[in-house]
């Protein structure tokens, strides 16, 4: 019997819902590692995040404050959790919380908690609103777009664009608008939900393809798997997808990781047009929710990320299986009220 390294890992993004967070698939990947004896600590924002109740995957869950409460409130709560759990690693999985975690990186390190995150500069420059400048800087095709701060701003912007246009939230959500009225409605909805600015982007027609990538912060691409969405929900989320053999996508991921020296997981959201051009729509600065497809295709990216975080040597993956599919499903868990009440009253379960 081998001696497995005991590691306590805290993970966010347990909202395994119709617009799923990556927490649960990240945990599944790490749990498949043959090198660790893991204790998984869930960090949750909402009492009904399904991952909280998945006791075969998550050993214990603690509620943490919303990102809007600021990094100090988050740090204070992590210190409390750390006193009980002796965390070795935190893997944040939400765009909206990354700013705080990046800012807290050094303070967490002083406590003995490791993270593996991009720098603040890397994080900021890939924002949707900065995409045109990003495309120019790194030589990548991006749709024309701009950020808008008010309805009159939106009105002015749309005068020089053709419909349909994409209206996108600062962090999440994107809707196709066919008229000014629709665009205004989405703007109001999105600014209320995610704040300002809202991004208006040229609509590019084509096939939606994504690539997951892991960078080591020194310009090396450690892992990458391209996927084509096969079934897309009304929220634009992949409910089914297939790994594809696309060298141009791998080359693009390699180019971006190498030029930006990105540290950590990322997802490139792309459109392939009928004339075979790739357009970069978004860069998500963390592992995507479909990461388990990469695990199934032979690249256990969550395990590799954990190893990198712990300072272990990770050799870049050189292959993956193409033609592997994922089909997502929903599943009703039965939860005793006692568990829910314990979580709501004590903040832990």
């Amino acid at each position, binding site marked *: 019997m081998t001696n497995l390294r005991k590691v306590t890992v805290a993970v966010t993004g347990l909202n395994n819902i119709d617009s799923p967070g990556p927490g649960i698939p990240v945990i599944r990947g790490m749990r498949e590692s043959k090198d660790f004896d893991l204790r998984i600590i869930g960090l949750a924002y909402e009492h009904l995040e399904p991952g909280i109740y998945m006791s075969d995957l998550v050993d214990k869950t603690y509620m943490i404050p919303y990102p809007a409460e600021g990094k100090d409130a988050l740090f204070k709560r992590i210190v409390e959790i750390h006193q009980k759990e002796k965390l070795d690693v935190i893997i944040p999985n939400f765009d909206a919380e990354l700013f705080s975690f990046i800012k807290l990186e050094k303070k967490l390190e002083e406590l003995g908690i490791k993270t593996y995150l991009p720098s603040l500069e890397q994080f900021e420059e890939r924002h949707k609103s900065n995409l045109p400048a990003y495309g120019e800087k790194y030589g990548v095709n991006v749709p024309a777009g701009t950020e808008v701060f008010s309805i009159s701003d939106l009105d002015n912007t749309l005068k020089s664009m053709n419909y349909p246009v994409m209206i996108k939230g600062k962090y999440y959500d994107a809707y196709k608008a066919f008229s000014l009225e629709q665009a205004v409605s989405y703007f109001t909805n999105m600014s209320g939900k995610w704040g300002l600015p809202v991004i208006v982007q040229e609509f590019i027609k084509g*096939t939606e*393809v994504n690539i997951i990538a892991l960078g080591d912060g020194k310009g090396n691409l450690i892992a990458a798997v391209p996927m*084509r969405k*096969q079934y897309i929900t009304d929220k634009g989320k992949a409910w089914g997808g*297939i*790994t*594809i*053999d*696309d060298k141009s996508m791998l080359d693009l991921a390699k180019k971006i990781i190498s030029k930006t020296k990105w540290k950590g997981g990322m997802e490139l959201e792309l459109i392939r047009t009928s004339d075979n051009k790739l357009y970069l729509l978004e860069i998500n600065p963390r592992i995507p929710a479909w990461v388990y497809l990469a695990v199934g295709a032979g690249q256990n990216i969550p395990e590799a990320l954990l190893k990198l975080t712990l300072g272990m040597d990770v050799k870049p993956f050189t292959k993956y299986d193409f*033609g592997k599919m994922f089909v997502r499903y929903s599943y009703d868990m039965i939860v005793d009220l006692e568990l829910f009440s314990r979580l709501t009253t004590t903040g832990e379960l």
Partner: protein
Amino acid sequence: MIIKGNIALSENGFVFNPSTGDSFTLNNTGKEVLMMIKKGKNISQIADLMIAKYDADRITIERYLEDFVNDLSMNNLMED
């Protein structure tokens, strides 16, 4: 007339293009023709074999074959 090297064709006529993730289902005749194209046969050679097997004249068979090859091209299954 060359089919892309990485196109997979299964026994039951399922065609998969790993570059795009597209998949297609062929009937027995389509599968038979695609296998002959994979073996390097041209339309005229395939027509020779099909005339012996099916009750149709060469012009009709070649027209169907050209349509079929055109479909394969449209769906990115043929080399340019």
